[in-house]
């Protein structure tokens, strides 16, 4: 152990740990609150020196698959994503539980309870359990660092992917981290069983049976894990189960006195049954503290909910949704409220908005003028990115935002049903993430839609990461079969407004698939580049 402490975000601590644990590659698509993991590796000189793969992937599915491929060769690898990214990657992730792995494989997923920057607040522990893989959930940034090492050992010991689940507050909070000595990368070492990764039914059945059988070993690992601890307390009226970061919110209320109740702190899953059983047996009731959905709480209650008296998110002692914090936990403990003064009435909300000078502003002006003002009730299906802010005043230009790529496919479905005009708005990076296949659907059927691919040449919302679409949009569209004369390019600046409106009108008149690509660099990345040039 070196005693060097460095200040790192939770995301960065995981990235540094992955480098120190000897990964050969990290694969990811940016998504708040997970993006900084991969960015840290990309900016790391150590990672460059040891030639760690660190380029972005087109989406989370390709990231998990590429990771699995790297694991196949015996090397350590990590795939990172936000919670909804795990939905995109669910297919390879679930099946990687059945194939198992060769080199250590960690899937790091950052959940976003309270939806600071997301469409939902799903809890990835459900998907981890669904995949029947061990899971780790750190309480703090140091644990996040340490768990990466533990996760790789676990992964290689049982030849299984391991899910590392964090949440926004841990991801985006900085703390001092004690790092370990760097391990060398693994040598190329192919799987002993040449058919391990061949999920033909006959082989898959055997492997799935094996996966079910080793669950008891995962449980034993959780019972023995250094991340699952029992802390005794004299007052047995309540026993507390605190998962991951929720443990901090509990301890925050006992900084000057010792917590009087027995506590089971959970950081590794499956849920350590013996520890829970002991707590349930010795306490009158159980208070469940977990960030996200009532995962452990639901299982502890069971369908009949009558054997154990449980307090938590399902019974109202804690809110059923949103993030936890020290005050909510304090209230659940029945302790006196120490809240401050209320917010004065005159304070106005200050919602996020498109940046001054953003190219999307020009596009929405042109779009509103044509779709809303000419066609009245034209509907615009949008997507995930900065341009989703077009839903807010002054634009109020879009009618949907569901998941990556849904703009094109929803517009298609609506057009199939007879809606005209059916317009899709999607960003360049979102298009190469999940929009291309939907566009192919529309091309095959010559569906009457107009697709705007807003090309700001970056993945803007998550902080300006490189976009796979850069310089390729026109050729991708024509390659998928969109007619060349209906792939229209425009520079969305004030001067070109009339021309832009004209193009939109012409393509609305065309009965088939049109793609309009307004291209102008994101004002934020442009500013960053200018600054870097000056320095």
């Amino acid at each position, binding site marked *: 152990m070196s005693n060097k402490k460095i200040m790192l975000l939770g995301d960065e601590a995981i990235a540094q740990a992955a480098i120190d644990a000897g990964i050969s590659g990290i694969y990811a698509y940016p998504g708040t609150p997970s993006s900084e993991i991969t960015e840290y590796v990309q900016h790391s000189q150590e990672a460059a020196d040891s030639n760690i793969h660190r380029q972005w992937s087109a989406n989370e599915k390709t990231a998990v698959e590429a990771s699995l491929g790297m694991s196949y060769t015996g090397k350590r690898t990590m795939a990172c994503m936000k919670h909804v990214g795990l939905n995109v990657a669910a297919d390879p992730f679930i099946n990687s539980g059945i194939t198992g792995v060769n080199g250590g494989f960690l899937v790091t997923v950052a959940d976003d309870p309270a939806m600071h920057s997301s469409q939902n607040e799903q809890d990835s522990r459900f998907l981890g359990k669904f995949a029947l893989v061990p899971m780790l959930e750190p309480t703090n940034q140091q644990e996040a660092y340490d768990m990466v090492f533990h996760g790789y050992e676990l992964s290689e010991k049982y030849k299984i992917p391991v899910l590392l689940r964090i949440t926004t507050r841990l991801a985006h909070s900085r703390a001092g981290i004690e790092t370990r000595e760097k391990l060398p990368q693994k040598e190329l070492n192919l799987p002993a069983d040449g058919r391990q990764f061949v999920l033909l039914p006959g082989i898959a059945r055997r492997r799935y049976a094996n996966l079910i059988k080793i669950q008891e070993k995962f449980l034993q690992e959780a019972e023995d894990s250094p991340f699952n601890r029992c802390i005794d307390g004299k007052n047995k009226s309540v026993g507390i189960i605190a998962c991951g970061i929720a443990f*901090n919110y509990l301890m925050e209320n006992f900084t000057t006195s010792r917590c009087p109740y027995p506590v089971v702190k959970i950081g590794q899953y499956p849920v350590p049954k013996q520890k829970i059983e002991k707590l349930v047996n010795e306490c009158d009731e159980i208070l469940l503290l977990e960030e996200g959905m009532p995962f452990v709480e639901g299982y502890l209650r069971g369908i009949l909910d009558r054997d154990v008296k449980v307090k938590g998110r399902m019974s109202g002692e804690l809110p059923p949704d949103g993030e936890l914090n020290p005050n909510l936990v304090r209230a659940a403990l029945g302790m006196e409220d120490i809240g401050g003064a209320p917010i004065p009435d005159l304070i106005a909300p200050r919602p996020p908005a498109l940046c001054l000078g953003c190219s999307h502003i020009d596009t929405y002006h042109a779009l509103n003028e044509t779709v809303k003002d000419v066609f009245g009730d034209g509907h615009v299906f949008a997507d995930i990115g900065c341009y989703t802010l077009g839903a807010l005043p002054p634009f109020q230009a879009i009618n949907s935002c569901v998941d990556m790529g849904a703009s094109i496919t929803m517009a298609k479905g609506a057009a199939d049903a007879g809606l005209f005009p059916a317009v899709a708005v999607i960003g360049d990076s979102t298009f190469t993430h999940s929009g291309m296949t939907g566009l192919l659907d529309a091309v095959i059927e010559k569906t009457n839609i107009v697709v705007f691919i807003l090309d700001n040449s970056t993945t803007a*919302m998550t902080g300006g990461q490189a976009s796979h679409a850069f310089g390729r949009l026109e050729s991708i569209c024509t390659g998928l079969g969109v007619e060349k004369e209906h792939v229209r390019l425009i520079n969305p600046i004030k001067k070109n407004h009339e021309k832009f409106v004209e193009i939109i009108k012409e393509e609305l008149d065309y009965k088939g698939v049109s793609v309009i690509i307004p291209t102008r660099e994101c004002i934020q990345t442009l500013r960053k580049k200018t600054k870097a040039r000056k320095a």
Partner: protein
Amino acid sequence: MKSDIILAGVGGQGILTIATVIGYAAVESGLYLKQAEVHGMSQRGGNVQSHLRIADKEIFSDLIPDGGADLIVSVEPMEALRYLPYLSPQGWLITNTTPFKNIPNYPEIDKILAEINKQPRHIALDADAMAKAVGNVRGMNIVIAGAASVFIDIPFEKMEAGIGTIFARKGADVVEKNLAAFRAGRKQAEENR
């Protein structure tokens, strides 16, 4: 020793630089530190806050509890008031008085300032003007950091050293200008506390 600080402002106003200056000095003083930041969508011109926690023993929560903050340090007057629920009854509110108006319904500034003046312990300063006066038009956030430094139990020299290190790669001139902004803010707070 513990200092729980809510840093407040609008995305792009430089509250994370304040956190870096204070944080650097805290770490150099051998203290524990946790700093929760806002990334992602909320950064786009919306209100942003950072929870900066410094203590001489282990810190648990990344978030400061309601009613637990020793300081609210804001680079914008309305944003200072948004986080009042976090402020401890003994806490200090330190704020810039120059508004950042990027919403159509920004309240009348006189009403905002009147609300700030109602706070029993506050320092309100026109940090934009003070930064300009020391020849550092972009140093408003550092003026605020200087004002806040009076209320944080970390040696002043450690904070000055922090500014020296953080701005070193931008050249000696930038370091000097930021030190001037920092000292101006500190002086103003010392005289008005």
